[in-house]
């Protein structure tokens, strides 16, 4: 089978960086472009980071800069606690020499997907602002997307920014509402699955046995993230949220997926940004999302480590 051609919409972000690494290390995937969005850090930083990561990995892939804030909500500001001041933890990548393309990410997405309808798969691992605007600006966009894999939501499990809501969806719930109801075939990777994929300090020690800049980057980029997890969530290690999206293409057998009607609460109360599935079909709406409710977590982490070993040897 030829590799699946994908475009990644992302807000790097520590775990975003690992998702980019995993995509580039996976022969089943051709990563054709990145579009950046606000989220983990500002749009200036996510764009800078996207370019810097690609240069670090010597990957000549275009980057389009996208939206600087959510559609409606005020942007969340939780400082540098999770992803570090730069967004890449303690990693110090050189200032990128390359520049983003001229087109805004929204127009870049529209152009790429309409040029080859149903050929490209979209991955979205940040707030869904760019994707929602592309859907609303170009009514043919939704039907041109072959598949959309999203990291976001907490369906049965608790939220990580409010009791009920996960960060990406909560950061732009109105955009998520537009995307979920757009008709695009969606696979959703929520916290229910990602919190079962924990990369531990021992895993990182193992990778560091290879003398290569890649494991050192992984250690540095995840340093603040690991510290945050041990301080606030009480365990050593961190969840591979964004990288787990790759499993939808590379190792779907690891995921337990169900088809449901899924939407997000935008009614402005305590549950704003809550991603819910209509398990009992009380809303009588057709299923719109394949949602991963479980995963064989350790097997995915081992797949991730193997691929990082491959990438490290290549870069070493």
């Amino acid at each position: 089978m030829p590799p699946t051609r994908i475009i990644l919409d992302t807000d790097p972000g520590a775990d975003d960086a690992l998702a980019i690494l995993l995509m580039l290390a996976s022969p089943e995937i051709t990563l054709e472009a990145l579009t950046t969005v606000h989220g983990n850090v500002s749009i200036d930083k996510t764009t800078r980071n996207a370019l810097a990561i690609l240069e670090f990995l010597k990957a000549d892939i275009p980057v389009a800069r996208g939206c600087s804030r959510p559609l409606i909500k005020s942007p969340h500001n939780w400082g540098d606690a999770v992803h570090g001041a730069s967004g890449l933890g303690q990693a110090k990548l050189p200032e990128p020499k390359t520049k983003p393309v001229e087109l805004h990410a929204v127009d870049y997405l529209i152009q790429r997907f309409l040029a080859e309808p149903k050929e490209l798969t979209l991955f979205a691992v940040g707030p869904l602002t760019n994707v929602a605007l592309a859907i609303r600006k170009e009514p043919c966009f939704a039907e041109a997307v072959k598949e959309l894999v999203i990291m976001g939501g907490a369906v049965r499990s608790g939220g990580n920014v409010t009791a009920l809501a996960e960060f990406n969806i909560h950061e732009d719930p109105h955009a998520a509402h537009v995307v979920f109801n757009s008709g695009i075939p969606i696979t959703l990777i929520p916290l229910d699955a990602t919190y079962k994929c924990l990369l531990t300090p021992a895993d990182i020690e193992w990778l560091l046995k290879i003398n290569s800049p890649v494991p050192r980057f992984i250690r540095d980029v995840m340093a603040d993230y690991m510290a945050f997890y041990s301080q606030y969530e009480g365990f050593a290690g961190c969840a591979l949220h964004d990288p787990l999206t790759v499993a939808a293409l590379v190792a779907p057998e690891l995921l337990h997926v169900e088809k449901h009607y899924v939407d997000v609460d935008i009614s402005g109360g305590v549950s704003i940004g809550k991603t819910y599935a209509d398990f009992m079909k009380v809303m009588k709406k057709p299923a719109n999302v394949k949602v991963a409710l479980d995963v064989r977590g350790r097997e995915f982490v081992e797949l991730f480590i193997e691929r990082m070993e491959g990438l490290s040897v290549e870069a070493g």
Partner: protein
Amino acid sequence: MTPKHIILDTDPGIDDSLAILLAAASPEIVLDGVVSVHGNVSTEQTTINALSVLELAKADHIPVYKGCELPLVKESLLSPETHGNQGLGYAQLPEPLNQPRAGHGSDHLIEQIMSRPGEVTLVCIGPLTNIALAIRQEPRIVENVREVFIMGGAIQHPGNTTAQAEYNTFVDPHAAHIVFHSGMPITLTPLDVTYQCIFTKDDLNRLLKIDSPVTKFIADSTRFYMEFHDEYQSIEGCVINDPMTLALTFMPEICDYQDLVVDVDISTGVGLGNTFADFYNYEKKPKNMRVAMGVRPRLFMDLFLERMEKLARKIS
């Protein structure tokens, strides 16, 4: 005084069409372009109607750009019962000879505002989707637009679409929320003033003394509109919201204004789309717009009728 350069964002629509005619008949302003949007009827149809009405007014040099087809977040809501299936009541204008220009309406707004900082005045008389999308894609238009005149909302007046909500803000409350809080210099024309300006059968008979395609169009379109106002609102005549908003760009003395803190309810309850002012402003928020709260109806009606007579005499 040099004439104001205006771009009209509109969903014609009967009263929208009258605003286009008033713009074409008013030497105090230069209508640089028209951007269409969904609303009273589909964007396909509002685009055709904008072209047809400009051709009727012999103003077909003015470019028309097609804008958004759906509200930003909510589902679509059109109003054929108010404006007829084609959007122009009983009027049948010839198919337009011109086509809309290439490019998206919201991109046209961005290009025009950014290429002439401080010069472009926006007059928005439909749902605010195009302007909201433009603000999110190019935030710098906020500082570079000269002024924004908006027809929308019902502050102390009841709604005309729900008990509390006016049509334009109800159709796309999320877009209104974005525009209201953007920092653009806004003048709002809510139902509080527009419902005091009734275009009556006597006014129509005055215009019909001139035999012209313009007066015939006004008669055929407003006859439908008057039937709607009679049936649904027990008003003899019809409310012509949109031309009044346009008139304020060059004859501000038609209204009295208050600087207010204005917001729109997007919480999806019974108040969805309600545009409200915080008159007591306990939270001491900065005032975000100038709202027309008082009106001299005859001043506006005389202006409107004189300009329509002048246009009708020119086009017979």
